[in-house]
């Protein structure tokens, strides 16, 4: 019988949200195929990470965006139950990152409400992957989206990481998303690098979020040294 003082204890959720650019440019040079491969290969590593941290319940969500944002996987899903279904990029789809951040902010607001009702989680981890310069044809630019995201407690406190795919990736926007000069923006120029980048981001995000520190990120996993050919280059 458990010798308990106070109420029940349990594993605390750690939400990992993958925000993926599925715009038309991701169809070039096999980028979307590489992203699918990277995510499929990263999942077992994430499961290992979850097993190594049994005090956390790693829950994954996936948000895609092109001309519109949408939840590819809306339900926070235990990583142990997740199988990767290949994603398609949207032909001629734009890069409406600002709108995606607004949708993400709504989800973060839900986490705020859960925390207020006593169902607290670790600060979420968010990994953004994009290959191009954000567009704002809907009228919602990145600044607006970031403002909405940072207005939520969960969004502001999240461990935020970003990966660029190819030379056209808009690194200043990705840097802005991260919001911490000590956290590197990684850019993958070939499929192998993308796997390494995704593996690093997933591991760093899940560890950083479950390790409160004086600084906002607590990222302690060193980024990979990226080598190899520049396959994707510029458009």
């Amino acid at each position, binding site marked *: 019988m458990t010798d308990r*003082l106070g109420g029940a204890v349990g*594993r605390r959720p750690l939400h990992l949200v993958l925000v993926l650019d599925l715009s038309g440019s991701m169809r070039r040079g096999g980028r979307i195929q590489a992203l699918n491969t990277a995510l499929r290969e990263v999942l077992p590593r994430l499961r290992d990470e979850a097993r190594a941290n049994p005090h956390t319940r790693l829950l994954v969500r996936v948000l895609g965006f092109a001309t519109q944002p949408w939840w590819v996987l809306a339900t926070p899903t235990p990583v142990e139950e997740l199988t990767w279904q290949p994603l398609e990029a949207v032909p001629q789809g734009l890069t409406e990152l600002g709108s995606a951040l607004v949708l993400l902010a709504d989800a973060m607001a839900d986490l705020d409400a859960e925390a207020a009702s006593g169902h607290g989680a670790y600060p979420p981890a968010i990994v953004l992957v994009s290959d191009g310069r954000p567009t704002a044809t809907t009228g919602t630019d990145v600044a607006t989206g970031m403002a909405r995201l940072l207005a939520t407690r969960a969004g502001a406190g*999240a461990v935020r990481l970003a990966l660029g795919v190819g030379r056209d990736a808009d690194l200043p926007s990705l840097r802005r998303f991260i919001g911490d000069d000590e956290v590197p923006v990684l850019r993958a120029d070939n499929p192998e690098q993308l796997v390494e980048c995704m593996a690093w981001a997933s591991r760093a995000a899940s560890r950083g979020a479950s390790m409160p520190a004086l600084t906002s990120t607590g990222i302690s996993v060193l980024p990979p040294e990226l080598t190899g050919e520049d396959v994707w280059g510029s458009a």
Partner: protein
Amino acid sequence: MTWRAVAATRRGASHVRRDLPNQDAHRTWTDGTATVVAVADGHGAARHARSDVGSRLAVDAAVAALRAYLTEVEPAGTADVHHHLVTVVGPELVTRWREAVAEHADRHDGRQDAQQDAQQDAQQDAAADGAVDVLAYGSTVLALVATPSWVGALQLGDGEVVLVDRGGAARRPMPLDPLLDGATTTSLCQDDPLASLRYAVVPAAEVDLALVCTDGFGVSRVDGPDWWRPVGEQLAHHAATGGADHVAERLPGWLEEPADVGGDDVTVGIVLRSPAQPDERSA
């Protein structure tokens, strides 16, 4: 009737798995009249690689600062005590901790205890600047001091302070700190730690029992934001029915589940009413 302090700690399951030390610390002290208990939580991130030392130095500094105050000052009332905690004890605590950190860093300069290259680089950069890498020692600190007239509390960083009144009702006496969001904590190693120190003082007659704990004790609670309330009230019940010895005996067992399930190090310090004891000075 006097006050007695008990405390215990347990290394968190995640630290056991990663072969990391217990980064929490605790210390108790009494002169038979006044009683002090302090707990501290060294930060877990790699940037704070010496935080296990920092937390030990933090509880030492807290106890030393409070002992000095109790020896040198006779306050007139709780408002007087509060003023002294803010103007005397808090600054003394921070000063003692920083001095102890500097001394430790000086003695261990070049020691290869940092596990991350980035950490080593930061220490080397700090050494090159002639500065102490205070961040490496980052820690919270929480302390209770109980006298026949008043009970005081200090808190810097996350964790909880809980008071249980003579009727058995628990409450949190500290003002809320909006900087504590679960992702970050205020700390002794920040630029202006005094700005984040919080204080509370209440008449001793209102207090049956008080506890301080590191955040590891609450992180895995799933019974809502008021998880601390049944903890305090059940603890007071144990104290009332079994006495201080009973509480001291059971306390380590009560830490097992939060440390094993929650994963973080867990430390709890308690002051509770007890029949007069022989002079006890414990560490």
